[in-house]
């Protein structure tokens, strides 16, 4: 179903193309060869593209992505949460002439060819206008909402499903040792700890044996050992004086990487399992 929203015809002298270019999963690589995989790694439905032009001024590109659900619309935004919050949509980030925001099942990307004060003002106006017309009511992914709050570095949060995304956020192995797929929900985030920083990865699997199998696979390939039992924490010191700790709780696999001490890792794991299973307050 096509979304119904309005994109203004003219903003501060910039005039948009009459009709959008419609991009779907079938032709996304014609539009963005080498980049389409990102959107296909989430529940991509379609994309509308407009261009705004004004004489002697940078062109402004407007891309409105329709996703199958609001969690994945946020997921695409969380590919990079770095930037200035400018109050557009349910969450926005702006930097160097690029505005990205999330609202409901939509993710928007508005890019000025070059950042000038006028172009920035225009693209923010375009963004606010579009956001005011997009359906709202999007909910953050449960895994993100339930992240432990203490020590969380909010800009480091990434929500995703597939291995190719994890490879970009935190390359772990060439094989898919966590058995990630389009059905798995995962979040990775950095935390301040007593000794420094650490990285928390949480993966939620379907009920059944998937989580236990992933834990076995991870421990066999990455740590060369048998996994701990359900509910037990296992910590290992690896190369570079880094600690890795893991815990499986029912269908939730939690791993802390790059901890500077065993204590840091295990405290973060305990906070995470408590928060993720009982309801925390992450983002």
């Amino acid at each position, binding site marked *: 179903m096509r979304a119904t929203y309005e994109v203004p015809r003219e903003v501060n002298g910039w005039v948009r193309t009459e009709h959008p270019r419609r991009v779907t999963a079938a032709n996304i*690589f014609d539009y*963005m*060869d*080498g*980049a389409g*995989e*990102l959107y296909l790694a989430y529940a991509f439905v379609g994309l509308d593209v407009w261009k705004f032009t004004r004489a002697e001024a*940078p062109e402004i590109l407007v891309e409105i992505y329709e996703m199958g659900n609001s969690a994945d619309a946020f997921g695409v935004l969380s*590919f*990079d949460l*770095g*930037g200035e919050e400018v109050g557009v949509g349910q969450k926005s980030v702006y*930097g*160097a*002439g*690029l505005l990205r925001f999330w609202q409901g099942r939509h993710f928007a990307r508005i*890019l000025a060819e*070059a*950042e*000038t004060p006028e172009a920035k003002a225009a693209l923010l106006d375009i963004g606010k206008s579009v956001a005011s017309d997009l359906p709202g009511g999007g909910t953050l992914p449960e895994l993100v909402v339930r992240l432990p709050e203490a020590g969380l570095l909010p800009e480091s949060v990434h929500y995703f499903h597939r*291995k*190719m995304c994890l*490879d*970009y*956020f*935190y*390359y*772990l*192995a*060439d*094989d898919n*040792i966590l058995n990630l797929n389009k059905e798995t929900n995962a979040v990775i985030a950095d935390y301040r700890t007593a000794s420094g920083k650490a990285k928390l990865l949480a993966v939620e699997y379907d009920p059944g044996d998937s989580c236990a199998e992933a834990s076995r696979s991870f421990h066999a*390939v*990455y740590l060369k050992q048998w996994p701990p039992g359900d509910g037990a924490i296992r910590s290992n010191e*690896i*190369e*570079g*004086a*880094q600690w890795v700790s893991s815990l499986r709780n029912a269908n939730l696999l939690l791993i802390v990487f790059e901890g500077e001490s065993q204590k840091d890792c295990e405290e973060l794991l305990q906070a995470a399992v408590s928060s993720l299973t009982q309801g925390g307050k992450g983002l």
Partner: protein
Amino acid sequence: MKDHAPGITRRDFIRGTAFAALSTTLGMKAAAESPSAAAEEEKFTSTVFIVRDQKALDDLHRVNREAASEMLDKVMCAVAGKEDAKAAWQTFVKPEDTVGLMPTSHLNATHNEITELVREKLTGAGIPAKNIVNAQGRSGVHKTCTVLMPLPNLKAHWLTGFGTVLKNYIQLGGNPPAYHAENSKDLGRIWNMPDVKGKTKVVIVDALRPLFDKGPQVDPQYLWHYNGIIAGTDPIAVEAVCVKIVQAKRNAFKGESWPLSPPPICLEAADKEYHLGCSDLAKIKIVRMGWEEGALV
């Protein structure tokens, strides 16, 4: 992926037991080795030339054509070891050649000014205009070319770690998705295909405004004015130097180690498995010309 070195993990990069040179370039090895006396004296096997000009771009990122033209001449003279620019270009192409230009076609594309200047330099060197074609894409034009000239833009790539020289030929392989993610390791295979092998005489990288994260879809907060052109006859050495520059920029941006991810495993594989050139920075001589500030290598 399963037909080579199965089970590679991040820990192998930290240990340096896999892709050792790459691990060093990315700063992933646990204990970075300081260059030993032996390494310092090791004979260089490849040379990469970097020319930079502070005036190459203006504040709106527009190319200063005159500066870019001078940069091209300067770097080509250096690569060819000639005093005269025309003679330098003639080192790599002959009037009877059909030259296929290989710019990055979209998403952080090669600046048109660079592509057009190269075309002008080639005609100035005696190549008939009709014999200079755009060989980028899957049209098969490259098969009719006797020389292929990579003109990629310098950029990181979220699926392959890096997307500059080696990835420049991905369309020639006929099935780009087959060379993404972990399969990007085999990008070097394309360079050894019968219609491609041996046709690359010189590589010219547009490093005027590189992208150091999130490529190919452009996020301008990760673009910067490097104002450079990087060239050499060894495509893998050129790529290795480009990786080093981008890696250094990433570390400077974050103020801490920020390794390219996923690791661009195609680089070392192109050296060790496909024998296309040298990926080990310890064996690559880097010659810098022009603007020095922020050279990063």
